[in-house]
């Protein structure tokens, strides 16, 4: 498939926003269980929610560039019964709204005593946090299923695609949280860096598995089934046009084999190796190393997403072999 920059930025940016929210709420749940000290409502949670929202809005803006008619984008909510894309279009603003409410509740330090336990503080933000977490995972699943749900894009059509979206979004979100903690909660740097390394390594395993799987993929369609001629020697002589068409633009990455292969190694190094090393080196709170870790990982994810799209081989390409 042709990797569209709008979709690359959409999926990576909302991934950071979602992962970062999960990182914030992880701290709140740990603090509720008194495992780590509670953080400031305004300078940590409310500011964090606002930043998470900025990433999500960034993704939303990127998605607009993908649409031919963004002014009618609201129509995309109607087919949620059958379309994962429609579900994603619902889940994204839903999550954004909940993150907003979560931030507002923290900012004004609002609370409601749902459980009739006067000692138990922060019930409202916990409830909102749980709801937002559910929405966050729903959004991850929708995003992953948009790709995993097309069964003949065999590189994508596997639950591992959804798992990768969750883990890669989580890794980049926690990585950003580490950076955020340097400025807003220095005692959490170790906590976040530790989680980032763990999630990054698990993501490397699952992403590595999908690379392994894709390298051994057996395609169900071939030129014989595409045109229905049973012969071992079939060669396309003309595609029906000379100047290209939507079919040659949308479904091919048009990169050289060398570039394509290098991008695989670039993303593996930038997304997984370098950030892990930088995080481990920066555990003492060295700002620049942690900033670099996030920036490098995000750039790595842009390459990862490019490769994700480019690697998917659409069966329609069987009809366009003289590109």
């Amino acid at each position, binding site marked *: 498939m042709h990797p569209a920059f709008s979709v690359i930025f959409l999926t990576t940016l909302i991934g950071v926003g979602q992962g970062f929210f999960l990182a914030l709420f992880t701290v709140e749940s740990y603090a509720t269980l008194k495992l780590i000290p509670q953080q400031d409502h305004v300078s940590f949670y409310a500011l964090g929610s606002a930043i998470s929202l900025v990433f999500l809005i960034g993704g939303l803006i990127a998605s607009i560039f993908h649409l031919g*008619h963004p002014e009618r984008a609201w129509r995309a909510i109607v087919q949620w019964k059958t379309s994962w894309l429609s579900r994603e279009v619902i889940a994204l603003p839903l999550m954004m709204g909940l993150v907003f409410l979560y931030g507002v509740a923290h900012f004004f330090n609002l609370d409601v005593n749902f459980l009739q336990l006067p000692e138990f503080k922060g019930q409202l933000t916990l409830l909102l946090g749980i709801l937002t977490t559910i929405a966050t995972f729903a959004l991850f699943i929708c995003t992953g299923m948009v790709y995993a749900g097309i069964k003949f894009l065999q590189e994508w059509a596997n639950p591992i695609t959804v798992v990768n979206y969750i883990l890669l979004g989580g890794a980049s979100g926690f990585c950003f949280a580490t950076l955020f903690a340097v400025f807003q909660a220095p005692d959490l740097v170790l906590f976040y860096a530790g989680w980032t390394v763990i999630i990054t390594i698990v993501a490397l395993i699952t992403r590595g598995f999908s690379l392994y799987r894709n390298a051994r993929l057996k395609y169900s369609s071939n030129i014989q089934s595409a045109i*229905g001629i049973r012969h071992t020697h079939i060669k396309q002589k003309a595609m029906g046009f000379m100047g290209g068409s939507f079919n040659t633009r949308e479904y091919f990455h048009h990169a050289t084999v060398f570039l394509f292969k290098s991008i695989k190694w670039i993303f593996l190094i930038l997304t997984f190796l370098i950030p892990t090393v930088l995080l481990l080196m920066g555990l003492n709170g060295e700002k620049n190393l942690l900033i670099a870790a996030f920036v490098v990982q995000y750039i790595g994810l842009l390459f990862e997403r490019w490769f994700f799209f480019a690697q998917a081989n659409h069966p329609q390409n069987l009809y366009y072999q003289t590109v």
Partner: protein
Amino acid sequence: MAQLALVIDLNVCVGCHACVTSCKEWNTSGQAGPMFDDRPYDENPTGTFFNRVQTYEIGTFPNTETLHFPKSCLHCEEPPCVPVCPTGASYKRTEDGIVLVDYNKCIGCKYCSWACPYGAREFDEKQKVMKKCTLCVDRIYDQNLPPNERKPACVMSCPTSARLFGDVHDPASEVSLAIRERGGYQLMPEWGTKPSNHYLPRRKTHLRIHEDELVRADNPLKKEDIRHETSKEVSLDDWLM
């Protein structure tokens, strides 16, 4: 329910592209139009078409055969492009099974084109909506046309009658008969899309000619100058003379 479809006879298609041009001509000025063209008279012209004719070479030289292969939306009975559309712009008509795009609803997300294994959908870069073969829905029901012209433009234009049009759910229709009797098949059956359009395979027509059919053994006008041995025996003629 009816399922209108095309049946394309690969045995007689000569790859003239008449269906491609007449499709573009009809649809660019019809309900689906205009269909954009970029650099139509320059280098690398490109544009939106509903129908393409491709050419394949089968076999290795010198035992090769040329196959011209027209390709357009197959109006699948289980169209994977329809459920994925988030807006409902892509839909399949219940009354005749035609798969259409509502250009007023389409947001141009291109997701449906990813979900069509045949690459039958083309995005219109000018109008920013997804387009595809409509089976000339604005023509086949037009009461102002004489009944024998209420067919898709491609079918009307094909000089070799390689394209048949009709209801594949009606066992007595011309298309059903052709599929049944001439080995009609579907493309990429492995995905369970159940394409309604069918293709008729290429056939080898051999004429077996015996030696004695090349020279006329009975030799009525002595043209071949065959002189048969005459019998030494007394024949009926001798007897009568």
